[in-house]
């Protein structure tokens, strides 16, 4: 749980508002009566930094943290009465950061010890997001056992992915808190967060700097990076492109301003940054987007229409396949019985 909250703290510190973060936490560790420190979650046994703090908004918690809800957040297929704080309101100019942590295995991640999401599910959800123009770029980070298998199935463009450990490797925790009797944070996330503490809003640190920090000796596992789907060179991709709410304002000359203000894109404020995040044994996730317009809704409608158009086609091919295969079966049986 501290993994997810650590990421939450980092993106919030770097200027992304709560309205653009979707945090999913399956556990109530902070206010559980067995927590010796009520309302607090600490990322280290020293207990010097409280991640829960005074100001936190958890968008999905408890039983709401399910694979279905997570996929719905990504793809934007929601009931119309679902509030804005529970939606990923992103468009083709949004950068989305997805962080997931929990118990995982080869190509799956467990949610609530009950169901699991597979690498194929996430890859398909991202492809759907791409087709519906719900992201500009995605940075996917995962900290589970055998985490690198989770991003191996991605096939949509503009996705940068990183994971904590290779196939057949475990991700280990960083340290235990003897007073609480639990491990508080994982090694991979701990070192990533430590690196992030050195980043501020104006930082020019790039993704390459983050990946260069990876050290198999410290992590006790081989963290991986997948950048073949990503179009930009990663040594020119700023960390704040995904983690920080940095808006760039262009100052225009007065007469030009008059000219531009008649067009809908008057202010020329370019916003990027989005963020998603899931932790699953303590399943939690967070999603961010900076563009607050409701693009998702029109997308949703178009998806529904596509689905409505498809079924007849699928029926005829299905029927055809059924008859052909059963015909083959009959032919086989006849041939076998006729054989002398």
């Amino acid at each position, binding site marked *: 749980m501290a993994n997810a909250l650590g990421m939450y703290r980092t993106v919030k510190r770097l200027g992304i508002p709560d309205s653009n973060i979707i945090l999913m936490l399956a556990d109530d560790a902070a206010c559980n009566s067995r927590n010796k420190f009520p*309302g607090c979650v600490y990322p280290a046994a020293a207990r010097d930094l409280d991640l829960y703090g005074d100001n936190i908004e958890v968008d999905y918690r408890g039983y709401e943290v399910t694979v279905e809800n997570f996929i719905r957040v990504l793809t934007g297929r929601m009931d119309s009465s*679902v509030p804005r704080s529970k939606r990923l309101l992103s468009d083709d100019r949004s950068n989305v950061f997805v962080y997931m942590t929990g118990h995982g295995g080869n190509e799956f991640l467990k949610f609530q010890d009950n169901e699991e999401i597979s690498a194929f599910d996430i890859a398909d959800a991202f492809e759907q997001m791409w087709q519906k123009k719900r992201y500009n770029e995605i940075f996917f980070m995962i900290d589970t056992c055998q985490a690198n298998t989770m991003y191996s199935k991605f096939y949509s463009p503009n996705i940068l992915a990183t994971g904590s450990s290779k196939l057949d490797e475990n991700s280990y925790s960083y340290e235990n808190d003897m007073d609480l009797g639990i491990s508080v944070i994982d090694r991979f996330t701990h070192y990533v967060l430590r690196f992030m503490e050195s980043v501020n809003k104006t930082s020019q640190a790039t993704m390459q700097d983050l990946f260069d920090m990876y050290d198999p000796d410290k992590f006790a596992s081989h963290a991986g990076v997948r950048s073949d789907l990503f179009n930009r060179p990663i040594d020119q991709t700023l960390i704040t492109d995904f983690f920080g709410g940095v808006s760039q304002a262009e100052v225009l000359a007065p007469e030009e301003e008059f000219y531009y203000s008649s067009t809908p894109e008057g202010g020329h404020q370019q916003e990027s940054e989005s963020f998603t995040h899931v932790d699953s044994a303590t399943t939690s996730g967070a999603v961010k987007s900076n563009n607050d317009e409701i693009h998702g809704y029109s997308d949703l409608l178009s998806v529904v229409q596509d689905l409505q158009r498809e079924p007849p086609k699928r029926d005829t091919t299905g029927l055809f396949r059924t008859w052909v295969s059963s015909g083959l079966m009959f032919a086989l049986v006849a041939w076998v019985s006729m054989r002398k």
Partner: protein
Amino acid sequence: MRWRLAIITYIALWLTSALAAYEEFHELLTFRPLSDGKLAARFTFTTSLNGTHPRDPSNLADEDQSQHYTVFPLALGQVLREYAVTELHLNLNAGKWDYDHWGYPDEPGVGTGAELWAWMGESATRSVDERWKGLRNALSGQFCASLGSLDDQRTTSPELTFRPEGSLPSSGGAHRLRHGTLPSEHVCTENLTPFLKLLPCKSLSGIASLLNPHRLFDTDWHGLSVHVRYLENEGIEVRLSFQSVFDPVRYTGGRRAWSLQSVFDRVIDRSCPVARSSEIRVAIPKEENNAQITPDFHNSDGEHAIFDVLNASKPLDVAMNWVNESAFDYNTVLSGVPLTHISVRRTLKGSSQSRGRLAVSITNNMPITIQTSYLESMPWLLQFYLHTLQVHSNGVSRDDLVSIVSCIPSVPHARPTLFQAILTLPPKSTLDISMDVIKPFLRYTEHPPDAQRGWDLPPAVLVPLLPANATVLTDHPELSLSEHKMDGFGYPIRSPRRMYTPVLLVDLATPDFSMPYNVIIMSCTLIALIFGMVFNLLTRKFTLVRVSSEP
């Protein structure tokens, strides 16, 4: 010419300011030392929007008027107007309220978990149920709670128990109640954060600055609530309230003494400038005269010491001390009489996973006969066998003491049971009600992720009603059951004294969750066997082989 223009401008300005809704914000913090050494604290933030009406549900199809507020919470106002809600109550509580030792709470809604109820007018364009669904989704986003899962399987309309606390507008259609509880919901910092954002001074100044999550969630009982009501001739009132029961004996290591610093780890440095009034009231214990309150209070109404935060010298740290008391004596607690008119205990008996018995035992602590309404709003996870209902008063069967007002049986996978009854409690006696229940089987997908833990069942709610013989009241004014208390701002609190029982945990039969895989493996094996045999029969040729007798 110029002065005329000035006068016209002045009149126009005066008119607009008079016509515009008139908003007030009051804050109040009350402390009440409890008989078992604990300390009940209640924060109340009241925002009233005078001269306004709830949205008329018949105009839901039309464009709504624009909303401009100065101190009224806009985020809540938008939700109220979008779904045309007349009255709304949301409680998020954790812990069990101990009625016997703590008495009646200041805010009556103390049932464990989340509770939401709303009165809404009927409308031809959007039905009450549709707006109820939208309302709970909107509030779940607003307050970071799982209220979205308060679906039809948990929604009832117990109109006998949950009467409107304000008034219902006479214009428009009939009003309907929707009520739902989620007993397993927990309360934490993420619920407090949006709560504080609704206050005009956030948690920066005034008494709201005392709301320190690390201390508030370390209490024996804590709960936050949002109440919206419409008062005829007044306007719409939003009351945000946080109630908690601290244990100063635990903090100080044996003594009852407390101060703002020791309880909240904070003191008041600044007052909230937009608050019309800002008060701290400390109840003065009646029977003990060694209680000492510091600093000197500004005012007193006999029962409370009143501190005016707006005019007090800062930083303000109210403290209370019991002189000559070195350690709190718990023996006085054990001998104490219950502080409420009735005491209720509800249990679920039976170890079987298919049937059980629900038993409620209600003790009347008063020397007079009183009546109480009894409400069970039970999800279909427990189904009542009403014909097995048995009533005993002090061991004697007395079926005449229960009159069932309504009972809507549950529909599996769809609708909860609603059971409302009026009970008559003879003086100083215990009434035992019990009935058989069955525990249904759930579908494989209906189980929660931690299915083995069981399901929390919502609390039963009892409302003590006026005694049948009202003349007793003149002799015993302390027996009065309805509250005629006024809150700090002259508005009568018309809420009845509802009593919530603790929640129950029911253990339902859980399947072996690996069963689908077993079924798949089993059926695959069977298919392979059958296919193998059939294939063998079809392809093999059986011929008679003559074994020659010669060796």
